[in-house]
């Protein structure tokens, strides 16, 4: 039997990153993700790695940019206000086609906001992490085991596509402990990176890591090429979990902690005879459009359950081409919906459907 240990979500991310070959971590303390930094501070010196507490989130993401340029696996982690500061670096990483892992253990905002769990950085992660046309691969774990698995996956995808992967978690996922089987993690070897700036050794032409391009015709071509890559990712990398969807007439869409709450509500509603299921996006970008499209054959109503004022709901509407009503069931500012609240939303949808 696999050996399971209880770990906090934040610690599972850190340990999984180390197992995935990450030996460089840069960060700045911010609740509720500081356990990642603390774990790295303890472990990295013992395995020949680098833990460095940067002077700011801005410096941290640029240190990440440096290590990524050198072709090594590297990560930073923060929480919402800190991720805003990293926005500049995220754009540069995209412009220079560098692979890296950025973790956002979200808290409520805007501004300094609070420190309790939130999903209100969905737009930031999937649409507007920084200036310019670009995407990040955004993964949304819903268990501590997934915190570990998706960390490994995030490094693989980042290297495969030469882009930033973001793990979008929240305070609950970071702080909770669950059993984790770390030895089950499948670690793939890192691909060759002939583009990395490691010194020419006077044997090859210089490598240049750069996002500046003053000729608009050229810059347009770079953007076109990058979006062809994004299109391939949208075709091949979208992931979702479908729960009790076979005959569902109502579908709840939720990711991360919201999906855990929704699962309870779906089970309770099923016991009451309501045909309801759950679609849980695991990748937020690319958004898993297919399960939603397929669900249109049975589903009459969708409910988007979120810890924000309604952000993913837009992607649910886009994925279903606005052909069905989509309602929002939410809490915000650090509050978490209860299974009862979601159940009420399901019941309301079911009753409305009979009228």
């Amino acid at each position, binding site marked *: 039997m696999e050996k399971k240990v*209880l770990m906090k979500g934040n610690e599972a991310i850190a340990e999984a990153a180390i197992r995935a070959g990450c030996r460089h971590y840069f960060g700045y303390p911010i*609740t509720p993700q500081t356990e990642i930094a603390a774990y790295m501070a303890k472990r990295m010196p013992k395995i020949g790695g680098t833990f460095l507490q940067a002077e700011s989130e801005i410096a941290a993401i640029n240190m990440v940019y440096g290590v990524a340029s050198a072709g090594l696996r590297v990560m930073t982690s923060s929480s919402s206000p800190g991720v805003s500061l990293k926005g500049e670096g995220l754009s540069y990483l995209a412009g220079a086609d560098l692979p890296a892992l950025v973790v956002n253990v979200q808290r409520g905002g805007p501004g300094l906001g609070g420190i309790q769990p939130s999903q209100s950085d969905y737009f930031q992660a999937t649409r507007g992490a920084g200036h310019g046309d670009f995407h990040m691969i955004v993964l949304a774990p819903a268990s501590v085991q997934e915190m570990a698995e998706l960390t490994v996956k995030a490094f693989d995808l980042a290297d495969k596509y030469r882009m930033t992967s973001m793990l979008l978690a929240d*305070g*609950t996922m970071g702080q*909770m*402990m*669950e059993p984790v089987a770390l030895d089950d993690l499948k670690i793939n070897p890192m691909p060759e990176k002939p583009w990395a700036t490691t010194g020419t050794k006077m044997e090859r032409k210089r490598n240049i890591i750069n996002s500046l391009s003053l000729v608009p015709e050229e810059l347009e071509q770079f953007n076109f090429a990058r979006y062809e890559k994004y299109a391939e990712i949208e075709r091949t990398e979208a992931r979702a979990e479908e729960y009790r969807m076979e005959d569902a007439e109502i579908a709840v869409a939720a990711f991360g*902690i919201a999906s855990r*709450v929704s699962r309870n509500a779906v089970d309770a509603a099923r016991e009451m005879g309501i045909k309801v299921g759950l679609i849980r996006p695991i990748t937020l970008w690319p958004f898993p459009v297919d399960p939603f499209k397929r669900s249109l054959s049975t589903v009459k109503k969708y409910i988007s359950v979120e810890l924000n004022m309604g952000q993913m709901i837009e992607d649910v509407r886009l994925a279903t081409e606005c052909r069905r009503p989509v309602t929002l069931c939410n809490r915000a500012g650090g509050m978490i919906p209860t299974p009862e609240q979601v159940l009420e939303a399901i019941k309301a949808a079911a009753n409305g459907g009979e009228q």
Partner: protein
Amino acid sequence: MSTTKYLFSGFGGQGILFIGKFVAYKGLIEDKQVSWLPSYGPEMRGGTASCSVIVSDSQVGSPIVSNPDVLVAMNLPSLDRFESSVVPGGSVYYDSSLIEREVARKDVKAVGVPATRLASENGFPTLANMILLGKILADRGEFTEEGIRAALGKVISARHADMLEVNLRAMQLGANYN
């Protein structure tokens, strides 16, 4: 299929998170699905701390316990705050040496243990939490020395292995309290 939801609460420093972790690990050892979720933030520095633990035969959905089957209250603010949230038929364990009032609810099982007093009388003043925990496990028919040693071995770091016996004694004291 059974699921037990625990809510542990008290002052920061009373070992609330620790007994939560014990219960989660004990469940893990017994091949159950478990989750442990602390309250976090300023309250961990002296205010009221709480922690949700779920032990289940099936996959744990929300890790947040808003209606516990078992409430552990180690101070009055915690009992005041959480008493009404306990499911009917659930149980409330409280430290009766720190909480002078009775549990008002009549539809729950209320068990007061003077844990803090017993702890200091017996020479382990920091282990009131373990005394209460021992009582809970005994009441639930889950008190076996073997099982408790195994779980203690998981939650007590190797560095503090010498603390295992005294923790066990505190739990036995609680288990035998009537």
